[in-house]
Protein backbone atom coordinates (compact mmCIF):
# COMPACT_ATOMS: atom_id res chain seq x y z
CA UNK A 1 0.00 0.00 0.00
CA UNK A 2 2.80 2.36 0.93
CA UNK A 3 4.39 1.60 -2.45
CA UNK A 4 1.23 2.53 -4.29
CA UNK A 5 0.84 5.75 -2.32
CA UNK A 6 4.42 6.74 -3.10
CA UNK A 7 3.69 6.24 -6.77
CA UNK A 8 0.35 8.09 -6.59
CA UNK A 9 1.61 11.59 -7.59
CA UNK A 10 3.09 10.11 -10.76
CA UNK A 11 -0.13 8.24 -11.50
CA UNK A 12 -2.20 11.40 -10.96
CA UNK A 13 -0.10 13.39 -13.42
CA UNK A 14 -0.06 10.53 -15.92
CA UNK A 15 -3.86 10.23 -15.72
CA UNK A 16 -4.15 14.00 -16.18
CA UNK A 17 -1.94 13.84 -19.27
CA UNK A 18 -4.04 11.09 -20.84
CA UNK A 19 -7.27 12.90 -19.95
CA UNK A 20 -6.07 16.11 -21.60
CA UNK A 21 -4.89 14.17 -24.63
CA UNK A 22 -8.39 12.72 -25.03
CA UNK A 23 -10.10 16.05 -24.35
CA UNK A 24 -8.02 17.63 -27.13
CA UNK A 25 -10.29 15.84 -29.60
CA UNK A 26 -13.34 17.86 -28.54
CA UNK A 27 -14.24 20.99 -30.50
CA UNK A 28 -15.94 22.83 -27.65
CA UNK A 29 -13.12 22.91 -25.15
CA UNK A 30 -11.10 26.12 -25.00
CA UNK A 31 -7.37 26.01 -24.52
CA UNK A 32 -7.70 28.15 -21.37
CA UNK A 33 -9.72 25.33 -19.78
CA UNK A 34 -6.86 22.99 -20.54
CA UNK A 35 -4.51 25.20 -18.55
CA UNK A 36 -6.89 25.12 -15.58
CA UNK A 37 -7.34 21.33 -15.78
CA UNK A 38 -3.59 20.79 -15.84
CA UNK A 39 -3.21 23.14 -12.87
CA UNK A 40 -5.70 21.05 -10.91
CA UNK A 41 -3.70 17.88 -11.62
CA UNK A 42 -0.34 19.46 -10.77
CA UNK A 43 -1.81 20.87 -7.58
CA UNK A 44 -3.25 17.48 -6.60
CA UNK A 45 0.04 15.71 -7.32
CA UNK A 46 1.97 18.34 -5.35
CA UNK A 47 -0.37 18.01 -2.40
CA UNK A 48 -0.24 14.18 -2.40
CA UNK A 49 3.54 14.25 -2.65
CA UNK A 50 3.69 16.63 0.30
CA UNK A 51 1.35 14.50 2.42
CA UNK A 52 2.99 11.18 1.53
CA UNK A 53 6.42 12.49 2.45
CA UNK A 54 9.67 10.78 1.70
CA UNK A 55 11.59 9.17 4.50
CA UNK A 56 14.83 7.29 3.92
CA UNK A 57 15.47 5.30 0.76
CA UNK A 58 12.43 3.14 0.06
CA UNK A 59 12.22 0.76 -2.90
CA UNK A 60 8.84 0.81 -4.63
CA UNK A 61 7.27 -2.53 -5.62
CA UNK A 62 10.53 -4.35 -5.04
CA UNK A 63 9.25 -7.69 -6.40
CA UNK A 64 7.32 -6.45 -9.42
CA UNK A 65 9.61 -3.66 -10.57
CA UNK A 66 12.71 -5.56 -9.51
CA UNK A 67 14.10 -2.70 -7.42
CA UNK A 68 14.24 -0.20 -10.27
CA UNK A 69 12.32 2.61 -8.61
CA UNK A 70 12.92 4.10 -5.18
CA UNK A 71 11.77 7.15 -3.28
CA UNK A 72 13.64 9.12 -0.69
CA UNK A 73 13.44 12.55 0.89
CA UNK A 74 15.56 13.85 -1.95
CA UNK A 75 13.43 12.41 -4.76
CA UNK A 76 10.37 13.73 -2.97
CA UNK A 77 11.83 17.25 -2.79
CA UNK A 78 12.79 17.12 -6.47
CA UNK A 79 9.28 15.89 -7.28
CA UNK A 80 7.76 18.81 -5.37
CA UNK A 81 9.93 21.26 -7.33
CA UNK A 82 8.88 19.64 -10.61
CA UNK A 83 5.15 19.68 -9.81
CA UNK A 84 5.44 23.27 -8.65
CA UNK A 85 7.19 24.22 -11.89
CA UNK A 86 4.42 22.53 -13.86
CA UNK A 87 1.75 24.40 -11.90
CA UNK A 88 3.26 27.87 -12.27
CA UNK A 89 4.19 27.28 -15.91
CA UNK A 90 0.55 26.43 -16.64
CA UNK A 91 -0.43 29.72 -15.01
CA UNK A 92 2.02 31.65 -17.19
CA UNK A 93 0.92 29.73 -20.28
CA UNK A 94 -2.70 30.66 -19.60
CA UNK A 95 -1.86 34.35 -20.01
CA UNK A 96 0.83 33.93 -22.64
CA UNK A 97 -1.39 31.98 -25.02
CA UNK A 98 -4.19 34.50 -24.58
CA UNK A 99 -1.99 36.90 -26.55
CA UNK A 100 0.14 34.57 -28.68
CA UNK A 101 -2.36 32.36 -30.46
CA UNK A 102 -0.73 29.14 -31.53
CA UNK A 103 -1.61 26.84 -28.65
CA UNK A 104 -3.81 23.76 -28.70
CA UNK A 105 -4.92 21.52 -25.85
CA UNK A 106 -2.23 18.97 -26.71
CA UNK A 107 0.33 21.45 -25.39
CA UNK A 108 -0.74 20.82 -21.81
CA UNK A 109 -0.98 17.06 -22.39
CA UNK A 110 2.59 16.93 -23.66
CA UNK A 111 3.79 19.10 -20.81
CA UNK A 112 2.24 16.68 -18.32
CA UNK A 113 3.77 13.68 -20.09
CA UNK A 114 7.15 15.30 -19.83
CA UNK A 115 6.56 15.93 -16.11
CA UNK A 116 5.85 12.18 -15.79
CA UNK A 117 9.23 11.49 -17.34
CA UNK A 118 10.91 13.93 -14.96
CA UNK A 119 9.35 12.36 -11.87
CA UNK A 120 10.34 8.90 -13.08
CA UNK A 121 13.85 10.22 -13.55
CA UNK A 122 14.06 11.39 -9.95
CA UNK A 123 13.06 7.91 -8.75
CA UNK A 124 15.04 5.79 -11.22
CA UNK A 125 17.54 3.41 -9.65
CA UNK A 126 18.57 1.70 -12.84
CA UNK A 127 20.18 2.96 -16.03
CA UNK A 128 17.75 1.63 -18.65
CA UNK A 129 14.79 3.04 -16.72
CA UNK A 130 16.65 6.32 -16.35
CA UNK A 131 17.33 6.41 -20.08
CA UNK A 132 13.69 5.87 -21.00
CA UNK A 133 12.54 8.46 -18.45
CA UNK A 134 15.13 10.90 -19.81
CA UNK A 135 13.79 10.39 -23.32
CA UNK A 136 10.13 10.80 -22.26
CA UNK A 137 11.09 14.11 -20.65
CA UNK A 138 13.25 15.28 -23.56
CA UNK A 139 10.79 14.34 -26.31
CA UNK A 140 8.05 16.28 -24.56
CA UNK A 141 10.32 19.30 -24.21
CA UNK A 142 11.44 19.17 -27.87
CA UNK A 143 7.82 19.39 -28.96
CA UNK A 144 7.04 22.25 -26.56
CA UNK A 145 10.08 24.16 -27.86
CA UNK A 146 8.99 23.85 -31.47
CA UNK A 147 5.30 24.43 -30.83
CA UNK A 148 5.14 27.75 -32.68
CA UNK A 149 5.52 26.56 -36.25
CA UNK A 150 5.38 30.04 -37.76
CA UNK A 151 8.44 31.40 -36.00
CA UNK A 152 11.82 30.69 -37.52
CA UNK A 153 13.78 30.86 -34.26
CA UNK A 154 11.52 28.19 -32.73
CA UNK A 155 12.20 25.87 -35.67
CA UNK A 156 15.92 26.49 -35.35
CA UNK A 157 15.71 25.82 -31.61
CA UNK A 158 13.87 22.50 -31.97
CA UNK A 159 16.27 21.30 -34.67
CA UNK A 160 19.36 22.14 -32.63
CA UNK A 161 17.92 20.70 -29.45
CA UNK A 162 16.67 17.51 -31.12
CA UNK A 163 20.01 16.80 -32.82
CA UNK A 164 22.14 17.49 -29.76
CA UNK A 165 19.67 15.71 -27.48
CA UNK A 166 19.83 12.60 -29.66
CA UNK A 167 23.62 12.85 -29.49
CA UNK A 168 23.46 13.00 -25.70
CA UNK A 169 21.05 10.06 -25.64
CA UNK A 170 23.49 8.02 -27.71
CA UNK A 171 26.27 8.81 -25.23
CA UNK A 172 24.03 7.75 -22.36
CA UNK A 173 23.27 4.34 -23.90
CA UNK A 174 26.93 3.86 -24.75
CA UNK A 175 27.86 4.57 -21.14
CA UNK A 176 25.14 2.25 -19.82
CA UNK A 177 26.39 -0.53 -22.10
CA UNK A 178 29.97 -0.11 -20.87
CA UNK A 179 28.87 -0.11 -17.25
CA UNK A 180 26.83 -3.24 -17.87
CA UNK A 181 29.90 -4.82 -19.40
CA UNK A 182 31.97 -3.92 -16.35
CA UNK A 183 29.62 -4.45 -13.43
CA UNK A 184 27.28 -7.02 -14.97
CA UNK A 185 24.21 -5.03 -14.02
CA UNK A 186 22.63 -1.65 -14.67
CA UNK A 187 21.05 -1.38 -11.24
CA UNK A 188 22.57 1.25 -8.97
CA UNK A 189 22.63 -1.13 -6.00
CA UNK A 190 24.51 -3.82 -7.93
CA UNK A 191 26.94 -1.26 -9.39
CA UNK A 192 27.76 0.11 -5.95
CA UNK A 193 28.35 -3.45 -4.64
CA UNK A 194 30.66 -4.08 -7.58
CA UNK A 195 32.60 -0.89 -6.86
CA UNK A 196 32.93 -1.86 -3.20
CA UNK A 197 34.35 -5.23 -4.26
CA UNK A 198 36.74 -3.68 -6.82
CA UNK A 199 37.98 -0.42 -5.27
CA UNK A 200 40.84 -0.02 -7.77
CA UNK A 201 38.45 1.14 -10.45
CA UNK A 202 37.69 -0.84 -13.55
CA UNK A 203 38.34 0.78 -16.98
CA UNK A 204 34.95 -0.26 -18.35
CA UNK A 205 33.19 1.34 -15.41
CA UNK A 206 35.21 4.54 -15.61
CA UNK A 207 34.60 4.82 -19.34
CA UNK A 208 30.89 4.12 -18.92
CA UNK A 209 30.50 6.68 -16.16
CA UNK A 210 32.38 9.23 -18.27
CA UNK A 211 29.97 8.81 -21.20
CA UNK A 212 26.96 9.07 -18.90
CA UNK A 213 28.42 12.25 -17.43
CA UNK A 214 28.75 13.68 -20.95
CA UNK A 215 25.06 13.01 -21.57
CA UNK A 216 24.12 14.63 -18.26
CA UNK A 217 26.35 17.64 -18.94
CA UNK A 218 24.51 18.13 -22.22
CA UNK A 219 21.18 18.16 -20.44
CA UNK A 220 22.20 20.54 -17.65
CA UNK A 221 24.24 22.69 -20.06
CA UNK A 222 27.56 22.35 -18.25
CA UNK A 223 30.84 23.39 -19.87
CA UNK A 224 31.85 22.40 -22.61
CA UNK A 225 28.36 21.29 -23.70
CA UNK A 226 26.61 24.58 -22.99
CA UNK A 227 26.63 26.18 -26.45
CA UNK A 228 23.15 25.04 -27.48
CA UNK A 229 21.37 26.46 -24.48
CA UNK A 230 21.31 30.14 -25.45
CA UNK A 231 19.74 29.61 -28.88
CA UNK A 232 17.26 27.00 -27.66
CA UNK A 233 16.06 29.09 -24.70
CA UNK A 234 15.75 32.09 -26.98
CA UNK A 235 13.74 30.17 -29.58
CA UNK A 236 11.23 28.63 -27.17
CA UNK A 237 8.26 30.65 -25.96
CA UNK A 238 8.77 32.36 -22.58
CA UNK A 239 6.77 29.97 -20.32
CA UNK A 240 8.36 26.93 -21.98
CA UNK A 241 11.81 28.41 -21.44
CA UNK A 242 11.02 28.87 -17.77
CA UNK A 243 9.80 25.28 -17.55
CA UNK A 244 12.93 23.93 -19.26
CA UNK A 245 15.25 26.00 -17.11
CA UNK A 246 13.74 24.79 -13.84
CA UNK A 247 11.91 21.46 -13.99
CA UNK A 248 14.26 19.77 -16.45
CA UNK A 249 17.30 20.85 -14.48
CA UNK A 250 15.77 19.60 -11.22
CA UNK A 251 15.03 16.18 -12.73
CA UNK A 252 18.43 15.71 -14.33
CA UNK A 253 20.27 16.87 -11.20
CA UNK A 254 18.24 14.40 -9.14
CA UNK A 255 19.41 11.59 -11.41
CA UNK A 256 22.99 12.91 -11.38
CA UNK A 257 23.06 13.09 -7.59
CA UNK A 258 21.53 9.62 -7.17
CA UNK A 259 24.05 8.21 -9.63
CA UNK A 260 27.16 9.87 -8.25
CA UNK A 261 26.21 9.08 -4.66
CA UNK A 262 26.38 5.36 -5.50
CA UNK A 263 29.36 4.88 -3.22
CA UNK A 264 32.00 7.12 -1.76
CA UNK A 265 34.70 5.34 -3.75
CA UNK A 266 32.94 6.16 -6.99
CA UNK A 267 32.34 9.77 -5.94
CA UNK A 268 35.96 10.11 -4.85
CA UNK A 269 37.23 9.05 -8.28
CA UNK A 270 35.37 11.86 -9.99
CA UNK A 271 35.90 14.77 -7.58
CA UNK A 272 38.76 16.36 -9.54
CA UNK A 273 36.92 16.03 -12.80
CA UNK A 274 33.76 17.60 -11.37
CA UNK A 275 35.82 20.35 -9.75
CA UNK A 276 37.10 21.57 -13.11
CA UNK A 277 33.75 21.17 -14.82
CA UNK A 278 32.11 23.22 -12.05
CA UNK A 279 34.69 26.02 -12.27
CA UNK A 280 34.61 26.21 -16.06
CA UNK A 281 30.82 26.06 -16.11
CA UNK A 282 30.51 28.99 -13.68
CA UNK A 283 32.99 31.25 -15.42
CA UNK A 284 32.10 30.18 -18.95
CA UNK A 285 28.45 30.87 -18.19
CA UNK A 286 29.25 34.28 -16.74
CA UNK A 287 31.28 35.17 -19.81
CA UNK A 288 28.38 34.24 -22.09
CA UNK A 289 25.84 36.08 -19.93
CA UNK A 290 27.73 39.38 -19.77
CA UNK A 291 27.64 39.74 -23.55
CA UNK A 292 23.87 39.32 -23.98
CA UNK A 293 21.43 42.13 -24.69
CA UNK A 294 18.35 39.90 -24.81
CA UNK A 295 16.86 38.98 -21.43
CA UNK A 296 15.92 35.41 -22.37
CA UNK A 297 19.43 34.79 -23.64
CA UNK A 298 20.88 36.35 -20.48
CA UNK A 299 18.71 34.08 -18.32
CA UNK A 300 19.77 31.06 -20.39
CA UNK A 301 23.41 31.90 -19.79
CA UNK A 302 22.77 32.54 -16.11
CA UNK A 303 21.17 29.07 -16.01
CA UNK A 304 24.59 27.71 -17.02
CA UNK A 305 26.15 29.54 -14.05
CA UNK A 306 23.54 28.07 -11.69
CA UNK A 307 24.36 24.58 -13.03
CA UNK A 308 27.91 25.37 -11.98
CA UNK A 309 26.82 26.12 -8.39
CA UNK A 310 24.86 22.87 -8.31
CA UNK A 311 27.97 21.04 -9.49
CA UNK A 312 29.82 22.53 -6.48
CA UNK A 313 27.15 20.98 -4.28
CA UNK A 314 27.69 17.64 -6.03
CA UNK A 315 31.44 17.80 -5.43
CA UNK A 316 30.77 18.44 -1.76
CA UNK A 317 28.20 15.70 -1.08
CA UNK A 318 28.91 13.00 1.41
CA UNK A 319 28.24 9.81 -0.55
CA UNK A 320 28.11 7.67 2.59
CA UNK A 321 25.17 9.55 4.09
CA UNK A 322 23.68 11.17 1.06
CA UNK A 323 20.66 13.33 1.81
CA UNK A 324 20.71 15.78 -1.08
CA UNK A 325 19.25 18.50 1.13
CA UNK A 326 21.60 21.20 -0.18
CA UNK A 327 20.88 20.33 -3.80
CA UNK A 328 17.13 20.07 -3.20
CA UNK A 329 17.06 23.43 -1.47
CA UNK A 330 19.07 25.15 -4.19
CA UNK A 331 16.87 23.63 -6.90
CA UNK A 332 13.77 25.02 -5.18
CA UNK A 333 15.38 28.43 -4.63
CA UNK A 334 16.57 28.66 -8.22
CA UNK A 335 13.21 27.44 -9.53
CA UNK A 336 11.11 30.12 -7.81
CA UNK A 337 13.36 32.94 -9.02
CA UNK A 338 13.58 31.73 -12.60
CA UNK A 339 9.91 30.78 -12.86
CA UNK A 340 8.96 34.20 -11.53
CA UNK A 341 11.19 35.91 -14.07
CA UNK A 342 9.63 33.97 -16.94
CA UNK A 343 6.10 34.47 -15.61
CA UNK A 344 6.76 38.23 -15.67
CA UNK A 345 8.23 37.93 -19.17
CA UNK A 346 5.11 36.01 -20.24
CA UNK A 347 2.72 38.83 -19.53
CA UNK A 348 5.03 41.80 -20.12
CA UNK A 349 6.42 40.39 -23.37
CA UNK A 350 3.29 41.22 -25.33
CA UNK A 351 2.19 39.63 -28.59
CA UNK A 352 4.98 37.94 -30.53
CA UNK A 353 7.30 38.57 -27.55
CA UNK A 354 8.04 42.09 -28.75
CA UNK A 355 9.67 43.14 -25.45
CA UNK A 356 12.68 40.92 -24.85
CA UNK A 357 15.74 43.19 -24.73
CA UNK A 358 17.16 45.10 -21.79
CA UNK A 359 16.28 48.35 -23.59
CA UNK A 360 12.64 47.32 -24.02
CA UNK A 361 12.19 47.36 -20.25
CA UNK A 362 13.47 50.91 -19.79
CA UNK A 363 11.37 52.82 -17.28
CA UNK A 364 9.17 49.87 -16.32
CA UNK A 365 9.30 51.02 -12.70
CA UNK A 366 7.66 54.34 -13.58
CA UNK A 367 4.71 52.72 -15.37
CA UNK A 368 4.25 49.41 -13.54
CA UNK A 369 6.05 49.76 -10.20
CA UNK A 370 4.80 46.44 -8.77
CA UNK A 371 5.90 44.36 -11.74
CA UNK A 372 9.31 46.06 -11.70
CA UNK A 373 9.63 45.39 -7.96
CA UNK A 374 8.76 41.71 -8.48
CA UNK A 375 11.35 41.35 -11.25
CA UNK A 376 13.91 43.05 -9.01
CA UNK A 377 13.20 40.56 -6.23
CA UNK A 378 13.72 37.62 -8.62
CA UNK A 379 16.94 39.08 -9.98
CA UNK A 380 18.29 39.74 -6.49
CA UNK A 381 17.40 36.19 -5.51
CA UNK A 382 19.30 34.82 -8.50
CA UNK A 383 22.24 37.07 -7.70
CA UNK A 384 22.17 35.86 -4.09
CA UNK A 385 21.29 38.91 -2.00
CA UNK A 386 19.82 38.30 1.48
CA UNK A 387 17.11 37.64 2.63
CA UNK A 388 16.01 35.91 -0.56
CA UNK A 389 15.91 32.17 -1.30
CA UNK A 390 18.85 32.44 -3.69
CA UNK A 391 21.09 33.77 -0.93
CA UNK A 392 20.29 30.90 1.42
CA UNK A 393 20.80 28.39 -1.40
CA UNK A 394 24.22 29.78 -2.22
CA UNK A 395 25.06 30.02 1.47
CA UNK A 396 24.35 26.31 1.96
CA UNK A 397 26.35 25.35 -1.14
CA UNK A 398 29.38 27.42 -0.10
CA UNK A 399 29.32 26.14 3.49
CA UNK A 400 28.94 22.53 2.29
CA UNK A 401 31.95 23.04 0.00
CA UNK A 402 33.99 24.44 2.91
CA UNK A 403 33.07 21.61 5.25
CA UNK A 404 34.01 19.11 2.52
CA UNK A 405 37.46 20.74 2.38
CA UNK A 406 36.93 22.33 -1.05
CA UNK A 407 38.07 25.82 -0.07
CA UNK A 408 39.16 26.83 -3.59
CA UNK A 409 35.79 25.88 -4.99
CA UNK A 410 33.97 27.89 -2.31
CA UNK A 411 36.03 31.01 -3.06
CA UNK A 412 35.53 30.63 -6.82
CA UNK A 413 31.81 30.23 -6.23
CA UNK A 414 31.66 33.53 -4.37
CA UNK A 415 33.72 35.28 -7.07
CA UNK A 416 31.43 33.99 -9.77
CA UNK A 417 28.42 35.11 -7.77
CA UNK A 418 29.84 38.65 -7.57
CA UNK A 419 30.55 38.64 -11.31
CA UNK A 420 26.96 37.66 -12.01
CA UNK A 421 25.66 40.84 -10.32
CA UNK A 422 26.81 42.71 -13.44
CA UNK A 423 24.13 41.35 -15.71
CA UNK A 424 21.39 40.98 -13.10
CA UNK A 425 21.71 44.57 -11.94
CA UNK A 426 21.86 45.83 -15.52
CA UNK A 427 18.18 44.98 -15.92
CA UNK A 428 17.34 46.61 -12.57
CA UNK A 429 19.15 49.79 -13.67
CA UNK A 430 17.36 49.85 -16.99
CA UNK A 431 14.00 49.45 -15.22
CA UNK A 432 14.56 52.07 -12.52
CA UNK A 433 16.94 54.72 -13.83
CA UNK A 434 15.42 55.52 -17.21
CA UNK A 435 12.28 57.28 -18.32
CA UNK A 436 9.52 55.20 -19.78
CA UNK A 437 9.14 55.43 -23.53
CA UNK A 438 6.09 53.19 -23.74
CA UNK A 439 3.07 52.33 -21.62
CA UNK A 440 3.64 48.53 -21.20
CA UNK A 441 0.03 47.67 -21.86
CA UNK A 442 -0.80 44.02 -21.43
CA UNK A 443 -3.86 42.15 -22.53
CA UNK A 444 -5.12 38.71 -21.65
CA UNK A 445 -5.97 36.90 -18.47
CA UNK A 446 -4.17 37.91 -15.27
CA UNK A 447 -3.02 34.44 -14.14
CA UNK A 448 0.63 35.06 -15.05
CA UNK A 449 0.56 38.31 -13.08
CA UNK A 450 -0.91 36.49 -10.08
CA UNK A 451 1.71 33.74 -10.32
CA UNK A 452 4.46 36.38 -10.42
CA UNK A 453 3.36 37.86 -7.13
CA UNK A 454 2.77 34.46 -5.54
CA UNK A 455 6.33 33.55 -6.51
CA UNK A 456 7.63 36.75 -4.90
CA UNK A 457 6.10 35.52 -1.66
CA UNK A 458 7.74 32.12 -2.23
CA UNK A 459 11.16 33.71 -2.77
CA UNK A 460 10.99 35.17 0.73
CA UNK A 461 9.20 32.16 2.25
CA UNK A 462 11.82 29.69 1.03
CA UNK A 463 14.59 32.10 2.02
CA UNK A 464 13.29 32.53 5.56
CA UNK A 465 12.12 28.93 6.07
CA UNK A 466 15.44 27.58 7.42
CA UNK A 467 15.78 30.53 9.79
CA UNK A 468 12.26 30.35 11.17
CA UNK A 469 12.07 26.57 11.51
Amino acid at each position, binding site marked *: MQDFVSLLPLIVV*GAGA*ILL*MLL*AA*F*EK*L*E*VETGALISMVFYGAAFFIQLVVGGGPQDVIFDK*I*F*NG*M*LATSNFSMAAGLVIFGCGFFTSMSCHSYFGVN*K*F*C*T*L*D*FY*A*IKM*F*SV*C*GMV*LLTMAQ*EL*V*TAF*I*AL*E*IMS*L*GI*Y*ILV*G*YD*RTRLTATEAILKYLMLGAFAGAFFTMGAA*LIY*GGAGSTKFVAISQFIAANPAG*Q*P*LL*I*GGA*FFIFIAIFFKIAAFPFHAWVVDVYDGASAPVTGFMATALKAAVFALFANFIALSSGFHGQWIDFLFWVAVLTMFGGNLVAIGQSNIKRMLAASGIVHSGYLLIALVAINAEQFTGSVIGYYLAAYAVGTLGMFAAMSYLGGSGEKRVNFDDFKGLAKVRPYSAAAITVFLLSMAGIPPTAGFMGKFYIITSAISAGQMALAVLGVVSSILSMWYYLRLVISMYFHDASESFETQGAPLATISTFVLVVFVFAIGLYPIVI
Partner: protein
Amino acid sequence: MFSEGLFYAFSVLAVLGALGLVLFRHPMRGAMSLVVTMISLAGLYSLLSAKLIFVLQLIVYAGAIMSLIIFIIMFLNIQDNDLPVEEKRFAYTAGGIVVLIPVVYFLIKIAGTIPGVEATIVGSGFGGIKEVGLVLFQDWLLPFEIVSLLLLVTLVGAVVLAGKRRVGK
Protein backbone atom coordinates in the same frame (compact mmCIF):
# COMPACT_ATOMS: atom_id res chain seq x y z
CA MET B 1 37.76 -19.28 -35.70
CA PHE B 2 35.12 -19.11 -38.40
CA SER B 3 32.82 -17.13 -36.13
CA GLU B 4 35.64 -14.72 -35.39
CA GLY B 5 36.04 -14.03 -39.10
CA LEU B 6 32.29 -13.48 -39.40
CA PHE B 7 32.41 -11.10 -36.44
CA TYR B 8 35.05 -8.94 -38.10
CA ALA B 9 33.23 -9.01 -41.43
CA PHE B 10 29.92 -7.91 -39.89
CA SER B 11 31.57 -5.25 -37.73
CA VAL B 12 33.41 -3.68 -40.66
CA LEU B 13 30.25 -3.74 -42.75
CA ALA B 14 28.25 -2.12 -39.94
CA VAL B 15 30.77 0.70 -39.55
CA LEU B 16 31.03 1.22 -43.32
CA GLY B 17 27.24 1.41 -43.58
CA ALA B 18 27.11 3.99 -40.79
CA LEU B 19 29.84 6.02 -42.52
CA GLY B 20 27.92 5.87 -45.77
CA LEU B 21 24.78 7.13 -44.03
CA VAL B 22 26.63 10.22 -42.89
CA LEU B 23 28.79 10.85 -45.96
CA PHE B 24 26.52 10.19 -48.95
CA ARG B 25 24.88 13.34 -50.25
CA HIS B 26 21.69 11.82 -51.61
CA PRO B 27 19.24 10.67 -48.89
CA MET B 28 18.36 7.52 -50.83
CA ARG B 29 21.98 6.34 -50.80
CA GLY B 30 22.15 7.18 -47.12
CA ALA B 31 19.05 5.09 -46.43
CA MET B 32 20.42 2.15 -48.41
CA SER B 33 23.68 2.20 -46.47
CA LEU B 34 21.67 2.27 -43.24
CA VAL B 35 20.07 -0.99 -44.43
CA VAL B 36 23.59 -2.46 -44.70
CA THR B 37 24.26 -1.45 -41.07
CA MET B 38 20.98 -2.94 -39.89
CA ILE B 39 21.60 -6.27 -41.61
CA SER B 40 25.16 -6.55 -40.33
CA LEU B 41 23.92 -5.83 -36.81
CA ALA B 42 21.47 -8.70 -37.25
CA GLY B 43 24.45 -10.85 -38.16
CA LEU B 44 26.22 -9.82 -34.97
CA TYR B 45 23.14 -10.73 -32.92
CA SER B 46 23.01 -14.15 -34.54
CA LEU B 47 26.66 -14.72 -33.60
CA LEU B 48 25.60 -14.08 -30.00
CA SER B 49 22.83 -16.72 -30.33
CA ALA B 50 20.18 -14.04 -29.77
CA LYS B 51 17.64 -15.69 -32.03
CA LEU B 52 14.62 -13.52 -31.37
CA ILE B 53 16.52 -10.23 -31.56
CA PHE B 54 18.13 -11.42 -34.81
CA VAL B 55 14.75 -12.07 -36.39
CA LEU B 56 13.22 -8.86 -35.06
CA GLN B 57 16.18 -6.85 -36.32
CA LEU B 58 15.70 -8.24 -39.82
CA ILE B 59 11.90 -8.04 -39.94
CA VAL B 60 11.26 -4.83 -38.03
CA TYR B 61 14.34 -2.65 -38.53
CA ALA B 62 15.88 -3.78 -41.82
CA GLY B 63 12.47 -4.68 -43.22
CA ALA B 64 9.56 -2.60 -42.02
CA ILE B 65 11.14 0.61 -40.75
CA MET B 66 13.67 0.94 -43.54
CA SER B 67 11.10 0.36 -46.28
CA LEU B 68 8.95 3.03 -44.66
CA ILE B 69 11.85 5.49 -44.73
CA ILE B 70 12.69 4.59 -48.33
CA PHE B 71 9.06 5.02 -49.39
CA ILE B 72 9.00 8.49 -47.86
CA ILE B 73 12.20 9.47 -49.66
CA MET B 74 10.76 8.14 -52.91
CA PHE B 75 7.56 10.14 -52.45
CA LEU B 76 9.58 13.30 -51.93
CA ASN B 77 11.29 12.64 -55.30
CA ILE B 78 14.56 14.34 -54.41
CA GLN B 79 16.73 15.32 -57.37
CA ASP B 80 20.35 16.40 -57.24
CA ASN B 81 19.49 20.08 -57.57
CA ASP B 82 17.09 19.86 -54.58
CA LEU B 83 20.00 19.11 -52.29
CA PRO B 84 21.61 21.99 -50.41
CA VAL B 85 25.02 23.18 -51.51
CA GLU B 86 27.48 22.31 -48.78
CA GLU B 87 30.74 23.97 -49.68
CA LYS B 88 32.55 23.41 -46.42
CA ARG B 89 31.40 19.88 -45.77
CA PHE B 90 34.87 18.39 -46.05
CA ALA B 91 36.24 20.93 -43.60
CA TYR B 92 33.44 20.06 -41.16
CA THR B 93 33.98 16.34 -41.65
CA ALA B 94 37.69 16.74 -41.00
CA GLY B 95 36.95 18.82 -37.89
CA GLY B 96 34.54 16.18 -36.64
CA ILE B 97 37.13 13.45 -37.13
CA VAL B 98 39.73 15.47 -35.21
CA VAL B 99 37.28 15.90 -32.31
CA LEU B 100 36.43 12.21 -32.34
CA ILE B 101 40.03 10.95 -32.31
CA PRO B 102 40.49 11.23 -28.51
CA VAL B 103 37.10 9.60 -27.92
CA VAL B 104 37.96 6.70 -30.20
CA TYR B 105 41.41 6.37 -28.60
CA PHE B 106 39.73 6.29 -25.18
CA LEU B 107 37.27 3.61 -26.31
CA ILE B 108 39.99 1.46 -27.85
CA LYS B 109 41.97 1.67 -24.62
CA ILE B 110 38.91 0.56 -22.64
CA ALA B 111 38.20 -2.27 -25.06
CA GLY B 112 41.82 -3.39 -24.70
CA THR B 113 41.34 -4.03 -20.99
CA ILE B 114 38.46 -6.49 -21.48
CA PRO B 115 39.83 -9.90 -20.62
CA GLY B 116 39.60 -12.41 -23.44
CA VAL B 117 37.04 -15.05 -22.60
CA GLU B 118 36.73 -18.38 -24.41
CA ALA B 119 33.46 -18.77 -26.27
CA THR B 120 31.05 -20.96 -24.37
CA ILE B 121 28.04 -22.79 -25.70
CA VAL B 122 24.84 -21.34 -24.29
CA GLY B 123 21.84 -23.53 -23.54
CA SER B 124 19.59 -24.44 -26.43
CA GLY B 125 16.76 -22.27 -25.12
CA PHE B 126 18.83 -19.09 -24.97
CA GLY B 127 17.49 -16.13 -26.89
CA GLY B 128 14.22 -17.77 -27.90
CA ILE B 129 10.83 -16.07 -27.71
CA LYS B 130 9.91 -17.74 -24.42
CA GLU B 131 13.18 -16.89 -22.68
CA VAL B 132 13.20 -13.27 -23.85
CA GLY B 133 9.56 -12.93 -22.87
CA LEU B 134 10.23 -14.27 -19.39
CA VAL B 135 13.12 -11.85 -18.85
CA LEU B 136 11.17 -8.94 -20.31
CA PHE B 137 8.05 -9.41 -18.21
CA GLN B 138 9.70 -10.50 -14.98
CA ASP B 139 12.96 -8.62 -14.60
CA TRP B 140 12.40 -5.67 -16.93
CA LEU B 141 8.72 -4.96 -16.42
CA LEU B 142 9.14 -1.31 -15.47
CA PRO B 143 11.17 -0.23 -18.55
CA PHE B 144 8.73 -2.19 -20.70
CA GLU B 145 5.79 -0.35 -19.16
CA ILE B 146 7.22 3.15 -19.36
CA VAL B 147 8.20 2.71 -22.99
CA SER B 148 4.46 2.91 -23.65
CA LEU B 149 4.53 6.43 -22.22
CA LEU B 150 7.44 7.28 -24.51
CA LEU B 151 5.57 6.03 -27.58
CA LEU B 152 2.47 7.98 -26.58
CA VAL B 153 4.45 11.24 -26.30
CA THR B 154 6.04 10.57 -29.68
CA LEU B 155 2.68 9.90 -31.29
CA VAL B 156 0.97 12.99 -29.91
CA GLY B 157 4.06 15.07 -30.67
CA ALA B 158 4.21 13.95 -34.29
CA VAL B 159 0.55 14.89 -34.75
CA VAL B 160 1.10 18.26 -33.07
CA LEU B 161 4.20 19.16 -35.06
CA ALA B 162 3.03 17.99 -38.47
CA GLY B 163 -0.76 17.85 -38.33
CA LYS B 164 -3.48 20.39 -38.97
CA ARG B 165 -4.15 22.61 -35.97
CA ARG B 166 -7.37 24.04 -34.63
CA VAL B 167 -5.74 26.91 -32.79
CA GLY B 168 -7.20 27.81 -29.42
CA LYS B 169 -9.09 24.53 -29.05
